[in-house]
Structures are given as C-alpha cells and as structure tokens.
C-alpha cells in the first residue's frame, strides 16, 4: 500500500548543533503513529518540517505523494495539524477563529464548525475570545482547528499538553473515534510514554535527532513488559542511555 506520509533523508541542523539527521519514515493509512522521544530530541523540528513551517536542509516530506516543499497547497489539502502550542487570534471568538480557517476548505460550513466545537467540548465557549482561555481550552480549540476540515491525516505535536486527566481521556477517545470511524491517520508526538502506549498502534523512537527504531505497539508489548522497557533498551542498544527519559 502507498504510504500516506513519506519522509526521506529529512535533515535540518540548527546553529546550536540541535536538529534532526537523516530521518526516514513511512506512515500508512490507519496508523496512529506515536513519535516518542525526550525533550529536545527533535520531535517538534520534524513536525515543523512536515508542515512546512521551516524548510529542510536536505530531504523532503511527501503527503499523499505531494512534496511539502514544492507543492505545499496540495500536500496540505487533507492535513490538519497542531504544532507546539495551539495558537488562536486573541481578538476573535472561538467560532470566528474556526471560521477563518474554514474559508480555506470549500466543504467546511458553519455546521461543521459547531460539530468540531462539540467534539472537543468547546461548544459552550463558542463566542468567547481565547484571551481568557486556559491552556487546556486553547489546546482543545487547537484540536478543533486541526480536525476542522475532516482531514485524512492529523499531525499533533504534544496534543495533551496542558490538559487535565479528563481532558486527556476525552482527547484520547476522540483520536480513537476518528481513527475508527473516519479512518483518519494520526502522527502524534509525545514525551509521555504511557500516553503513547495507550493511544498509538505504531511507535517510532527519536533520540538526539535520529530515529532509533520503528515498531508496532503489539510487537513491542509482546517482547517487552512495558513500552518504557522497550524505550530504555532501545536507547541503551544505541549506547546513549540518558536519564532524561520521561
């Protein structure tokens, strides 16, 4: 089967020596891909590259066969994303914020906006401005924005940031629901091992800007007691055990 996301030799080095080196990944339809790694491993860099916020030194990302660097509009047509902190225009209401985005998709109408607000539990804050929102509410609004266009692919960077337990469960359920009902493919980064274990069906470990291994959650749990054991052993295998895991 054709991969939906195809990352080839993706490289981006910052002046401070951080960044990612030669990342190759293929994400297929139906995957809930967990991108696991400690803080500063290069998760956000990789996701910014995937969504065109920054430009790679080498390599390319293709989504549905369209290159992100060359054919941005088509590559992003069926993608929804939430990178780093969810941003919204502070002077526009939650509804108006989504309305702005809806204009880019011909088949998204106001009814759909209400739908995603409902899905993320933001309906009652529909006409409030994000100025007064808590981090968790902003994160929910960001998720609503990401799934607004009924995307086939959703790229989420630390989606559970700032959410309380209830929120985490809600979002996890939402991801499961979309994956089951709409066959949405997810690419989720997180540094929370437990969360990745619960949500994702395929897991890639990134460490110091490089991918260590990609394996399905089932296979991992067959061989290791927990995902954490797997992660530690992967890092150890590569001779770079770090206490910063977690």
């Amino acid at each position, binding site marked *: 089967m054709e991969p939906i996301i195809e990352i080839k030799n993706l490289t981006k080095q910052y002046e401070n020596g951080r960044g990612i080196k030669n990342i190759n990944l293929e994400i297929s339809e139906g995957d809930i891909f967990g991108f696991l790694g400690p803080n500063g491993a290069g998760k956000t860099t990789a996701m910014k590259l995937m*969504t*065109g*916020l920054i430009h790679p030194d080498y390599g390319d990302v293709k989504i549905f066969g369209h290159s992100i660097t060359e054919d941005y*509009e088509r*590559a992003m*047509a069926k*993608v929804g994303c939430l*990178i780093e902190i969810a941003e919204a225009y502070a002077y526009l209401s939650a509804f108006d914020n989504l309305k702005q985005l809806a204009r880019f998709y011909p088949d998204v109408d106001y009814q759909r906006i209400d739908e995603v607000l409902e899905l993320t539990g933001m309906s009652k804050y529909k006409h409030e401005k994000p100025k007064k929102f808590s981090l968790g509410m902003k994160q929910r609004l960001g998720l609503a924005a990401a799934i607004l266009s009924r995307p086939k692919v959703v790229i989420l960077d630390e989606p559970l940031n700032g959410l309380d337990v209830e929120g985490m469960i809600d979002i996890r359920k939402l991801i499961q629901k979309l994956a089951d009902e709409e066959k949405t493919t997810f690419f989720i980064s997180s540094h929370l091992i437990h969360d990745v274990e619960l949500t994702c069906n395929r897991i890639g470990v990134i460490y110091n800007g490089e991918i260590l291994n990609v394996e399905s959650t089932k296979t991992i749990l067959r061989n290791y007691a927990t995902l954490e054991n797997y992660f530690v052993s992967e890092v150890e295998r590569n001779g770079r055990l770090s206490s910063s895991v977690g």
Partner: protein
Amino acid sequence: MAVFQAALVNELEKLYKKKKALAALLLSLAVIVIGQIIIVGVRSGFGLRTAGSMEFPMLVLSVVVNTILPLFTALVTIDSFSGEFAHNNMRITLTRPVSRLKIFAAKITAISIFILATLLLLLFFSIMAGFIFNTNSATLDSFVRTVFSYIVSLFPMVVLALGIVLLTNLLKSGISVFFVSILIFLGLKVLGVFFSQYSSILMTTQLDWYNLFLMKSFPLAKIMRQFLIMLGSSIMLFTAGFYLFDKKEL
C-alpha cells in the same frame, strides 16, 4: 484564486475585528473636524477665505498624505506582519493548504484596501464638510480632479506599505520597525529638500504626486515616469519582502 480570496477575506476580517477600521474612521473624522474648526477660526479671525468647498478636500489630503495616512499604513502593516509573528499567529494560516505567496499577497492587498477605504472615507467627509461650511467654489473640473487626487494617492501609500513590509521581515520587533520607519521617513523628507532634483525616486516625495493630476496642463510624460518609478520600487520591495517572508522559520 479561491484560496487567495479566502486568505484576503480572512485578512480583511481581522482588520475589521481588530477595530482598526473603526480607529481609522474616527481619526479621519477628527482630522476633518479639527481642520474645519481651524478654517472657520482663521476665516472669522483673520478674514481669509482659507479654503473654498473644493480646496478643503485638497487641504485635508495635503495634510493626511504626510501624516496620519502613513501612520495608519505603518501601524496596520506592522500589526499584520510583526504582530502576527510575535504572537505566533502566523502559524495559524501557514499550516493551512495555502502557499506563503498567497498569504503574503493577501496581506498586502488587505492593507491596500484599507488605505483606499480610508482615502475614500476622507474624500467623502471632506467634500461634505467643504460643501456645508465653506464658500462654494466647486466646478465639475475641480471635483473630478479632487476625486482623482485622492484615488491616485493610493499608489505611493502602497509603495510605502511595501517598504514597511520589508522592514517587518527584516527586524524582529514591531516597535523597532515603527521607529526605523519613522526615522527613514523623516530622513527621506530631508533628503528631498536637499536633493530636490532626485526627489522623484524618494517615497516621501511620491506621496505628493497627486499634485501632478491637478495641473492645468496634464503632464502625462511626468505622470508615466513617476508611475513607472513607483511600479519598479513596488516590484523590488514586494520581491525582497516575499523572499524574506518565504524563508522565515516559525
């Protein structure tokens, strides 16, 4: 094109929702009211006619093109670029299926529409005030010339906006862009005085180019030259600004 339109509508909605339009409207009205008060004062105090009904709009224009209009343009431009960079708001649109060129163009188009709207607003109210309070001196010719003068003032203002766009993509903070813009503006004004023979290439002198449309003898060659100079600078500034905008890492 549909995507560009969406981006443009978004930019306009943001301008509108930010009360920028309202602020511009109120300030423009204030200018007209203050101008009219001064004129009535001078007229009754000194016995000068100062401005007839058709001169009043020209008086207003000659003041605003060098003061509040560049100021509005700078504020709106800085807000649209520096402001969104600073609040990370640029990401909201940049991760949508729309190319950076379209977003860049939409922003500049929205700023241009804002400038044009302000000009038309000033034109309308100054003509109204001119007719109500001042001695009637209108002829069809002077009316047409006045309307024309206001509309053509859009071009140099867009060149100015493009210059500020370039600055917003060069400098990090909006405040430094604002002050650098003011310094450059004043610097160019001074240069225009000392090197008046080269003044046609200076943005600040171009602001007054509407005067060319007021002349009895329509100086077509001069107008064409001035237009092409502005067009050339616009293309350069647009390209340079977009180059930086496209490279920007968010």
